[in-house]
């Protein structure tokens, strides 16, 4: 395929083809597409391939804001295509590399347009030059008619479509019909019953030997013009296609199918980079003083193209907020997925976050309290889901202070699905208790106010000793609170896998981490790998490219050669013998048993 063709936008479906909760199978330049519309109306165009085991996404389900792959239930969200649910490991957020391959898509002229060379969210607009079609003029409207398949290449299809007028009873004898043509489109304009009408034909090169003919009718908006047109266009196209088949120009059966040969999508410019994803603009629709020193902020996406970006998350999620002080801060979401903010004028789904003004703030929370007013625009990330509900029989939520935020969202989910739960909320005093209305909507809520550290510990021990054995424990609060609960749970013989808590920065357990040093043999550079940070992250921060894929020690992509020192292997990729030999390690998870590792980098 030529570069010029490939760099352009193409129509791939009529807007009505992307029906609610449906995944439409498309093809463009032999690349298979999964086209779908989310419940907010946003159109997604993805490579039709789950990046896990290659299952076609069109086999899966459109669940409103996500596509669920039918093979392993992986769920990819609308917009950026990020996988946010990975059921085989329901407790850990999927690696950021697990993402649908997205294409830029827009709706225009009642058609869906796609550019394979650009990822979703790319700001470019479809060029219209040689498509012959523009936005409808004032007082006029455009409607897509039925699209037809011609089993032939685009040039043959074009020559055929140029003969369209001869197959329509009224157009065939009409001397006012004017025809324009370009390499990929045909335009007819004429007057009929006193109305200026236009038909645009746009050719989609689905496969080398299969072309889709899209047709768009343009007519005065006040005319009941479309009335006979679906049937009239269908009849003309059928007659035209039969003629082309009779003449031997077009095949009556498919000449090839997608199963014959897999064609990967063309490479795209790298706009998404791990760790520096695009932030979106959000409007602050309401600011509420929910307790002493705690404010809630209702946020909704500002730009139409991001309209569903905050609608979908797993309870327990947080967003990154670029605070007015210039610091990126993580704030948990208190609202439920899909909630429409009370203060929203547009009825857009958003999120509510809570921010506590920290007395020793470096500026983040203070600037949120001091500078953000209703109507302000802030930059935020899409929701991130590091803290999740397990599939256990019930949930015991233990919150201290502002830590109640994600637990309220989770408790709301448990309540909504009728699962067993209880919430214990520790706070300095009644004035510090936030979100009274949300608490009142839950059933089994217990406030513990003004307790000393000793009394808090005793209360925790008492709660855990009498908890329902079906429950898992979810903790959010300051470190001493978390430590007290983990200690109390251990003393009662509760398994560590039943205590869940928020770890903002990483998904792998860092409980047994020790810091270590690495020396890079080729440059002599020495780097420190601190607790809580992986070797691969430290390397990439210093500009040393180690490619990663699964980020879980499974795939072997980030293998580095060890020249000196003893690695502490935490992966499942290397065999026992290879681990003993210690000549290589997986930089995404493995650490060092010795103080220093020398790497062949």
């Amino acid at each position, binding site marked *: 395929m030529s570069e010029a063709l490939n760099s352009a936008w193409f129509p791939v479906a009529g807007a009505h083809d992307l029906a609610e909760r449906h995944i439409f199978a498309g093809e463009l330049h032999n690349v*298979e597409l999964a086209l779908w519309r989310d419940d907010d109306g946003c159109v997604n165009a993805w490579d*039709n*391939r789950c*990046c*896990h*085991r*290659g*299952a*076609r996404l069109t*086999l899966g389900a459109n669940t409103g804001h996500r596509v669920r792959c*039918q*093979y*392993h*239930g992986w769920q990819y969200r609308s917009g950026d295509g990020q996988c946010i649910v*990975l*059921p*085989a*490991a*329901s*407790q850990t957020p*999927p*690696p950021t*590399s*697990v993402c649908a391959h997205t294409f830029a898509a827009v709706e225009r002229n009642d058609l869906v347009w796609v550019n394979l060379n650009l990822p979703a969210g790319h700001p470019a607009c479809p060029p219209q030059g040689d498509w012959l079609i523009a936005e409808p003029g004032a007082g006029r409207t455009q409607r897509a008619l039925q699209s037809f398949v011609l089993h032939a290449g685009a040039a043959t299809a074009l020559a055929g479509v140029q003969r369209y007028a001869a197959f329509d009873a009224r157009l065939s004898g009409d001397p006012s019909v004017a025809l324009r043509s370009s390499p990929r489109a045909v335009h007819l304009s004429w007057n009929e019953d006193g109305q200026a009408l236009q038909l645009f034909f746009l050719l989609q090169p689905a496969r080398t030997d299969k072309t889709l003919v899209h047709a768009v009718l343009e007519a005065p908006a006040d005319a009941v013009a479309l009335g006979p047109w679906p049937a009239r266009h269908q009849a003309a196209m059928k007659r035209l296609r039969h003629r082309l088949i009779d003449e031997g120009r077009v095949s009556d059966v498919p000449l090839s199918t*997608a*199963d014959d040969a*897999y064609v*990967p999508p063309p*490479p795209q410019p790298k706009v998404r980079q791990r760790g520096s994803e695009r932030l979106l603009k959000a409007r602050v629709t309401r600011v509420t003083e929910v307790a002493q020193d705690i404010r809630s902020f209702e946020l909704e996406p500002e730009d139409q193209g991001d309209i569903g970006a905050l609608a979908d998350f797993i309870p327990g999620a947080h967003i990154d907020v670029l605070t007015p002080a210039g610091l990126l801060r993580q704030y948990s979401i208190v609202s439920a997925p899909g909630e429409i903010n009370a203060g929203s004028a547009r009825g857009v789904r958003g999120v509510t976050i809570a921010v506590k003004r920290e007395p020793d703030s470096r500026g983040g929370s203070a600037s949120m309290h001091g500078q953000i007013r209703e109507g302000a625009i802030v930059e935020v990330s899409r929701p991130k889901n590091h803290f999740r509900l397990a*599939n256990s029989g019930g949930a015991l939520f233990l919150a201290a202070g502002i830590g109640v935020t994600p637990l309220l969202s989770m408790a709301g989910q448990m309540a909504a699905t009728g699962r067993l739960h209880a919430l214990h909320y520790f706070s300095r005093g009644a004035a510090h208790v936030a979100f009274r209305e949300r608490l009142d909507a839950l059933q089994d809520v217990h406030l513990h106010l003004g307790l000393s550290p000793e009394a808090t510990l005793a209360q925790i021990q008492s709660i855990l000793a009498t908890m329902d054995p079906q429950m898992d424990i979810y903790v959010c609060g300051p470190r001493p609170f978390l430590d007290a609960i983990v200690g109390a749970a251990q003393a009662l013989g509760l398994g560590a896998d039943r205590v869940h808590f928020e770890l903002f920065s990483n998904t792998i357990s860092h409980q047994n981490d020790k810091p270590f040093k690495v020396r890079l043999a080729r440059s002599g550079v020495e780097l420190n790998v601190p607790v809580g940070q992986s070797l691969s992250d430290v390397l990439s921060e210093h500009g040393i490219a*180690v*490619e990663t*894929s*699964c980020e*879980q*020690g*499974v*795939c*072997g*992509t*980030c*293998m*580095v*050669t060890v020249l000196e020192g003893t690695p502490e292997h935490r992966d*499942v*990729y290397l*065999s*026992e013998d290879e681990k003993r030999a210690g000549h*290589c390690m997986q930089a995404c998870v493995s650490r060092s048993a010795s103080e220093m590792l020398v790497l*062949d*980098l």
Partner: protein
Amino acid sequence: MTIESVVWDEWYPVAIAEDVTPCKVYKTRLLGHSIEYACDADGRVTAWHGNAERTPCKALTRYHTHWVSLGDPPERFFALPEFDEPDRRTLGGGSMTVHVSGLRAIENFLDMAHFPYVHDGFLGAEPYTDVLPYDVSIEPPGEIFARNCRFFQPRGASTSNDGGYDTDYIYRVTRPYVALLYKSSPHHPGRMDVIGLFVQPLTEEWCRAHTLLLYLDETTPDSGLRLFQQTIFGQDLMLLSNEIPKKLPLDSRFEIPVRADAMSMAYRRWLDQRGVRYGTYRELEAQAMPAPAGQTLTRAVA
């Protein structure tokens, strides 16, 4: 195309013994070649190329299955001691043709994470979707094992209908196109039923999967055991024929594994180390994706 020795000089299943009528000639394909085979009245199998010369191929019957080789296969067959246990039922579970690489069919057989989605209500059910860590090892003579696999199954066998139980599994790969599954028997605590998936690569993108059942079950009729197995495979068929590309990619940046895929990852790596190319997707290796640091895509046999 020249097919590498590790694939060419190998035994491949063409039929489960009970499915073959004596003295009738069957036509099939193997590694892209037309072949024919037949059994005589005593059940002895012979095979030959489907050409004018009827060039003979090697053929034998082992484990209730007829095997053919186009090349010079190894003397030693993989061990299957359960086949000789007198209290086991031995029967075929069906042979199904699928439009996918046989390597993908084997990999699907080694996977638990798809149970709640592809086999909902049979081998798995939401919300019991988590795959607990299991142990993968390479054991003599170079076979892959996944041990300590457990999964909650609502109805793990044709006879279990009691609301589900945790099933123990052991997976074993003996040859690139041969895998075995050992699963806890509902009838004999402490012993395991054995299911063999013997895959015949018709071409790189088409395969025929033959299933052998070695069961500890005195009550269920043959038809019941077969029907269950065919129901399960029928569910897999839909997914397998919708995997793209049809050949198995070995590059873990093209298809991303997670921890639950440790067995699948070991299998892909094992194929790569043995130099298996037939049925694997290599097109991207030559193009955009350079080999990562410290890793070559084809290594010496371990």
